[in-house]
Structure formats: structure tokens, C-alpha cells
């Protein structure tokens, strides 16, 4: 299958020879990915293929055994997770990883405050920084979370929580956003909101999303990477992938998720 079109679009996020094994169990094998700026790439594969592991490697939550990761040309392999976020690489989690006891406004305000480097301040109140608060509220409003922003996170409906996942990531003003099954576990009535949010993301933002629902993949992705057993099985446009008998055998034959 064909690799992504070689154009002069700069590469927002790239990996080279990325490998990881837990003891004798390899979970990532020699992975090479290039995300051009503004890409809408989907990462698919059967359960256990290592998709979330790949995101963990890219974001720094896991240390690779070999290989490098480049963000806008800079080698970030040795940087810790928060450093990568500072340089514009953000992710959402497959299972909600939110501040359960804070409300949405507080959570996003915290994220924006961190981005602006003001989270260490302990003399002035949170309420005094109107720029930060306005920015936080604007992010929430765009994701249709404005009216429920005072509700404690753990009391929000699941779909709203998934949107908050995205809001927290957006608050860091990422250049590259890795979405781990953005609508996972969301009841069908609410998943529309999540996809609307994903569709509404800026064209400058580079997206890589893990998804099991092939309808979603075909709707949003311009390029699909298929991961099997920790290695890239193949990649190509949606048309190429859906016509590929090998992919069908390995993955598409199974019932779709969620």
C-alpha cells in the first residue's frame, strides 16, 4: 500500500525505528510514522495491536528501547511528558482521565494556567487572571460545555466528560493532537457531539486518532495506518485500505466497536 504523498508539507510529528518490549513481549516494532502538518490520520488495528502503547511512547509516558521521535523536526525522544506538551504535543485518554473533584471551568483554567506558566504562583487568586479564565471559558464554549462548566466533573454525563478530555488537551494549544478513541464508551445519542467537536478542530492542527468504528474512520481520515502486533501492517488512503484483502482478513472482518 502507498505511503503518504510526498509533498513539501513539513512533518509535524515523526517517528523512526520506534521499538519497545516488555521483557520478551514486543509491543512496538520499528515503527516509522510521519504526520504532515494538518493531517487527519487514523490509527486502526485489532485489540492488543499496540495503538495506545504507541501514543504512550510518543507522549513520553513510556520510554522506548530504541528509535526516535521528532516534533516539528526537533528530537524529543529524551524529553519528559510535560516538556513534550509544552512543545505542542497533546493527547486524550481512552478512559477518562479527568480531575473528578474539580468542575470543568476549574480544570480547563488549570490547564491554561499551566500553559501560561503561571501555575506556580501562590499569592494572587485564580479569579484575578481574567485573560486565562476567558480563554478557558472560550475553549469550553466551543465544545458546547459552557453551560455545564460549573458542574463537578464526576457528575457530568459520560459524553460531556469525553468532550472535557478534548478540552483539556486543547487548552495546551497543541500543534499535534493524539486522540485515543475519542468516542469510546459514549452512548450513541451523545457520540454525535464528540465527532462534531473533532470535525470542528482547526485545519492547522495535526490529528492522529485511534478509532475502531470504521464509519468514523472513513469520514474523518485522509490516511489510515494499520497496526498489527506492534508493527505497521500497512497504510494508505481509505479507499486503498478498504480494498486491501490483507487488512480485511486481519481486522475489517471483525464487528465494529462501540
Amino acid at each position, binding site marked *: 500500500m502507498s505511503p503518504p504523498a510526498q509533498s513539501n508539507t513539513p512533518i509535524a510529528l515523526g517517528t523512526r525505528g520506534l521499538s519497545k518490549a516488555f521483557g520478551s513481549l514486543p509491543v512496538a516494532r520499528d515503527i516509522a510514522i510521519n504526520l504532515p502538518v494538518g493531517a487527519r490520520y487514523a490509527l486502526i488495528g485489532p485489540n492488543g495491536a499496540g495503538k495506545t502503547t504507541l501514543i504512550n511512547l510518543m*507522549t*513520553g*509516558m513510556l520510554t522506548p528501547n530504541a528509535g526516535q521521535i521528532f516534533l516539528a523536526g526537533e528530537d524529543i525522544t529524551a524529553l*519528559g*511528558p*510535560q516538556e513534550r*506538551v*509544552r512543545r505542542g504535543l*497533546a*493527547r486524550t*485518554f481512552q478512559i477518562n*482521565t*479527568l*480531575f*473528578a*473533584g*474539580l468542575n470543568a*471551568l*476549574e*480544570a480547563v*483554567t*488549570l*490547564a491554561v*494556567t*499551566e*500553559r501560561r506558566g*503561571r*501555575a*506556580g*504562583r*501562590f*499569592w*494572587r*487568586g*485564580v*479569579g*484575578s*487572571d*481574567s485573560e486565562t*479564565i*476567558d480563554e*478557558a*471559558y472560550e475553549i469550553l464554549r466551543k465544545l458546547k460545555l459552557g453551560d455545564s*462548566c*460549573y458542574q463537578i466533573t464526576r457528575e457530568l454525563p459520560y459524553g460531556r466528560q469525553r468532550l472535557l478530555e478534548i478540552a*483539556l*488537551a486543547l*487548552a*495546551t494549544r497543541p500543534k499535534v493532537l493524539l486522540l485515543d478513541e475519542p468516542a469510546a464508551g459514549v452512548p450513541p445519542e451523545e457520540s454525535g457531539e464528540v465527532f462534531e467537536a473533532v470535525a470542528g478542530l482547526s485545519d492547522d492542527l495535526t490529528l492522529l486518532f485511534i478509532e475502531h468504528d470504521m464509519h468514523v474512520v472513513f469520514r474523518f481520515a485522509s490516511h489510515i495506518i494499520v497496526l498489527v502486533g506492534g508493527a505497521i501492517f500497512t497504510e494508505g488512503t481509505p479507499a486503498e485500505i478498504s480494498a486491501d484483502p490483507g487488512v480485511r482478513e486481519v481486522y475489517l472482518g471483525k464487528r465494529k466497536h462501540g
Partner: protein
Amino acid sequence: MRASAATMTPQGYLQAQSRWHPLEIAFWLATLLPFVLFPDYLSLASQIAITALFALSLDIILGYAGIVSLGHAAFFGIGAYSAGLLSKYGWGEPLTGLVVATAIAGLVGFAVSFVIARFRHFTLIMITLGLGLLAFEAANRAHWLTGGSDGLQGVSMWPVLGLFKFDLYGYTAYTYSLAVLFVVFLGARRLINSPLGLALRGIRENWVRMPAIGADSQAHIRKAYTIAAAMAGLAGALLAQTTESVSLESISFQRSADVLVMLVLGGAGRLYGGLIGAIIFMVARDQFSGIAPQYWYFWIGVLLVAVVMVLPNGILGGLSHFYARWRGK
């Protein structure tokens, strides 16, 4: 400190979080009551204010950042011995003594914070326990400096601001301790409502999410721990000055465990929890001082089990829960 969401702007909401609630004002006015109602108990009241300050310092790291420390008395003791030694060797001025003792405790806290920030869960609990026990042993062994188990002798304080002598009735002691408590409380309140306070709550709520929003959790923890250590040292110094003595008890595991119980009793993470817990604990201990220690600890044990199983957020947590349900109806 709830806001009616309908008419609030986001900024208004956040600002309202830090507004003074009438109950708070009532509380602080009530702290003046002992002068009028219990003039014979002012020494006890002074001890309670000091312990409340110590509990407040633990709340910063436990209630807000979620760090379980079984050795926080180490800083209390460092502050107490520093203030005591300063006076013993000739400088008995109270306020500057406080500043010096607080600074020493804060510095030690800063050094320790680099260790504390790197660990979590069981390892962290054991390290705090170990460091606390080490501090105790060090104080115990260094007879030449601390007086060992005999305690520090020769502490004598000059009058506060040159005017108010420390008398036997405790007027000066209580006024002094209460004033310091209040001032520090104001600072703690600001801290809690500041971006750092929000970040600490984030760390407590979800450790994993913090780096994912670009936060340097370890730096935040170091800051909070240093501040908490300084506050604890300040409380210890107050004790040394108002009682004109320092004993090993001030750096003992007993003190670390008692303050943890008080904080949990009152409710951690609510700023007033430590204060309420300290008041209840110390008053009860004074009232029941006649009974043998093992019976006292029986009830503490029952209390702890009850709090964990029934009232997980302590008294204040239980009260606010009931209040919310009552309002909901």
C-alpha cells in the same frame, strides 16, 4: 462557598470561591471567646492555637496535594528546637525568633522536598516515616544540643514587642499564638485560592493527567512542601516560646500521628478541618486527661475506623454533605 451559576460569569464564579463566608467570620470572632468565657484556660487555648497551626500546615500537603506524611512533626520539632536554642544562647526576642526558626524549618523542608516529590504511595509513606524517626533519633542522641530526653533547659523569652511579658495566666501566650495563627491562616487561604492551590488539587485529583496538561507536578509539590514545613516550624517555635521549654515530644511520632488524626477528624482539604479537629481533639484530651492512655487510644481507634467507614471527609465533609442534601430538598 457555593455560587448561583445562573447569573455568574466564569470569572465571577472563581472570584466568589475565595470570598469570606459569614461562618468563617463567626469562627474567628469565636476564637476571642476564651478571653471572656474561659480565662482560666488560656494556656490550653494557646496550645490549641499552636496545634491548629500545625494541623493547617499538614493540610497543605495532605489535604491539597494528597501527600500522606507520617513524619511531619520533624519540622515542628526543628522549629521548636531552633527557637529554643536561639533563646537559650542569648537572643530571646520572640518575633525575630519566630522568623529564624521558620526559616530553618523551611530550609530543611526545601532540601527534603526534593526527595518527597519523587515518590508516591507506600514508598513515600515509608520515607516520611523514616525521616521523621531519624529526626527523633537525632534529637534524642544529641544531648549536648537538645538536652535529649530531659528536654531543652534555659529558654527564656523577652516581652513581645518589648511590651507584653509572657505571664503565667496565658494572656500574652494566647494573644500571641492566636495572632500568628490568624496571619498565617490568611496566607494559607491565599495559597489555596491561588493557581498553585488549584494545581495541588489537580495533583491530588489525578496525578496522571497533570503532565498531560504540561504541569511540572514535582515543582509544585516541592513548593507546597517547603511552605508546609516552614509553617510547621513556625508552630513549633511558638510552642517553644510560649511554654519556654522544648521536649522530645515535639519531634516524636506521637505528634505526627496525633496531628494526622486531628486533620482527618476535622476533614482534610477544607482549610478549617485541621483547626476544628485540633480544637475537638485537644479539648477532649484535656477533659479526659485522667484516664489511662490506652483507653484514650481505644476511642481514637474507634474514631478513625468510624471516620474512614462512615465520614470519609471528616466532620466538615459530613456537615457540608448534609447541608447540600438539605438545600437540595
